[in-house]
């Protein structure tokens, strides 16, 4: 027993160099650095417009929907999964509430319908992935992508419905007047408040609840989670249900902002959500990433489209830029891993 005084301890491990110690810091806050840099560039290009309150509020208004989809997608990606159906589920939720409204349903039900439909679709995804033993969440959610889109078209007859009551539009369109600042009216969009509250809630959920930590554990090593007595299937069902809920919630916000429901809403939105999560530093192999990072990823995407719009750059260039940034973000992650692992 005397020998075990040093038992399995680090054998006078050399102190890691500054570059290695920088990695966790960059991991956590690197995305904020990127955002700061982008803001500086955009400010330099459009000093009057970019930093105006109006423009900032606009960015948050426009990114709110992607923010909702991305945080749900983040959960799926944390478990090394994916949810391809969020764009279609958004459209389904949006269409259900618009059609229900047109049919004269009372607004509280109309309001809840979007999120509830999303939750139900997500639950079906979760059941399919676990109980039907689909080989990968890709398959089940790809199926849901088509089914939800088809359903959205069927219930609407393929046409948009416009005109929603005030309370239903509240989350997506409303803003709070805070006062004047110089010549500017300071309006705080409700969508921004919603985004911040949702992200704080997800942060608390993932960092501090039993299920949140188990989601990380499942992403890190599903086998370990299983033999530790964690009910992996139940956790996965919860993940995809939450992801669907957030997609439906995104549908409600988009319906509010556009004062309508249209069956083509959210086409390709799943890819933008995935992009935001990946840019935010989450690992596609699961188990790694932070809520702050995802928030940063959403903001980066918002800044790109806002900045290019302000500078009258074609939307096609936005696509190229976002694509390049995805590749760059993952490349940086690969480099980081190589430097970070000491074998």
């Amino acid at each position, binding site marked *: *027993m005397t*020998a075990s005084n*040093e038992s399995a301890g680090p054998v006078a491990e050399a102190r890691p160099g500054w570059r290695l110690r920088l990695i966790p810091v960059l991991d956590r806050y690197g995305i904020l650095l990127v955002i700061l840099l982008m803001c500086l560039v955009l400010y330099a290009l459009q000093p009057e417009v970019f930093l105006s309150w109006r423009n900032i509020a606009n960015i948050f208004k426009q990114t709110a929907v992607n923010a909702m989809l991305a945080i749900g997608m983040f959960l799926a990606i944390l478990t090394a999964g994916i949810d391809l159906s969020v764009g279609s589920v958004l459209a389904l939720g949006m269409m259900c509430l618009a059609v229900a409204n047109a049919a004269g349903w009372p607004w509280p039900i109309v309001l809840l319908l979007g999120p509830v439909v999303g939750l139900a679709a997500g639950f079906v995804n979760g059941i399919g992935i676990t109980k039907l033993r689909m080989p990968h969440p890709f398959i089940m959610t790809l199926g849901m992508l088509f089914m939800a889109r088809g359903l959205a078209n069927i219930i609407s007859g393929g046409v948009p419905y416009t005109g929603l009551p005030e309370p239903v539009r509240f989350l997506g369109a409303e803003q709070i007047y805070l006062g004047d600042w110089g010549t500017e009216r300071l309006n705080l969009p409700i969508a921004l408040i919603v985004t911040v509250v949702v992200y704080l809630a997800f942060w608390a959920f993932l960092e501090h*609840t039993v*299920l949140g930590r*188990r989601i990380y554990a499942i992403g890190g090593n599903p086998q370990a989670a299983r033999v530790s007595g964690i009910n992996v299937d139940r956790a996965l069902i919860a993940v995809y249900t939450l992801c669907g809920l957030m997609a439906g919630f995104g549908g409600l916000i988009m319906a509010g902002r556009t004062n309508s429901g249209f069956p083509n809403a959210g086409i390709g939105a799943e890819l933008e959500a995935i992009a935001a999560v990946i840019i935010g530093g989450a690992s596609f192999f699961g188990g790694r990433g932070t809520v702050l990072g995802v928030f940063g990823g959403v903001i980066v995407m918002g800044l790109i489209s806002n900045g290019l719009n302000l500078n009258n750059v074609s939307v096609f260039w936005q696509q190229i830029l976002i694509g390049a940034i995805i590749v760059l973000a993952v490349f940086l992650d690969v480099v980081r891993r190589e430097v970070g692992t000491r074998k």
Partner: protein
Amino acid sequence: MTAAPAPAATDLGSQQPILEARGISKYFGAVTALRGVDFKLHRGEVLGVVGDNGAGKSTLMKILSGLYSPSQGQLLFEGRPVRFHSPHDARGLGIEMVYQDLALAENLNIAENIFLGREPRRGRFSGPLALVDHKAGRRRAQEHLDNLRIHVKSVDQKVGELSGGQRQAVAIARATAFQAKVVIMDEPTAALAVKEVGKVLDLIKGLKHQGISVVLISHRMDDIFYVCDRVIALFHGANFAEARLTETSRSQVIGWIMGTKQGAGELAYDRVQ
């Protein structure tokens, strides 16, 4: 050779075994993995289990830890018949398994890995939204590691940053964090650097001193002869031989692994060279 079970060095003779298996058979379809295997583990004993690949060691351990249920036969824990439906049941009695592939989540820190699936909680929520008491987890993990004399820089370290030996130590700490009575280890030294093997073996000795019974599967005679009180050999899914460590020799045990009772140490060395 000693066909009858020999009392372990530390056993008080007539004391009943803490864990016993009687006539265990296990079939996987047409394949017979185990045939009427008997197994006894005494309190505070380190029992070595040897056998060639496919001899049924791992299958037997998975039955003892509740991962598989036996096709035939009976398990007794502290003299009472028990039936495990999952590792969860076995763990409830204090039977823990350290898996060969080290069931740890590399992305979580040491404290979280030790309490994985049994997180300390706080607040009034229950179920999946119960709050994890990170502070208590860190403190209890540190205390537990100190108890086992495992030294790490910090319990906040991610397991992915640890060496193989340190991971093995964390896996053992995990298995013993909740009043374990029996710890089953499947080749705990197989993947380790030479200098780390001794530390893990000392850790196993430490468990024994705390009164925990240990089952150690190993191919390495050095491991067996350093920590075990008794060794049993399986061959082709059946009991083959068994002896106290003081009453046998390396060459004899190596012979058992190869299915001969003549003692085949030299033969084994010849094959290696």
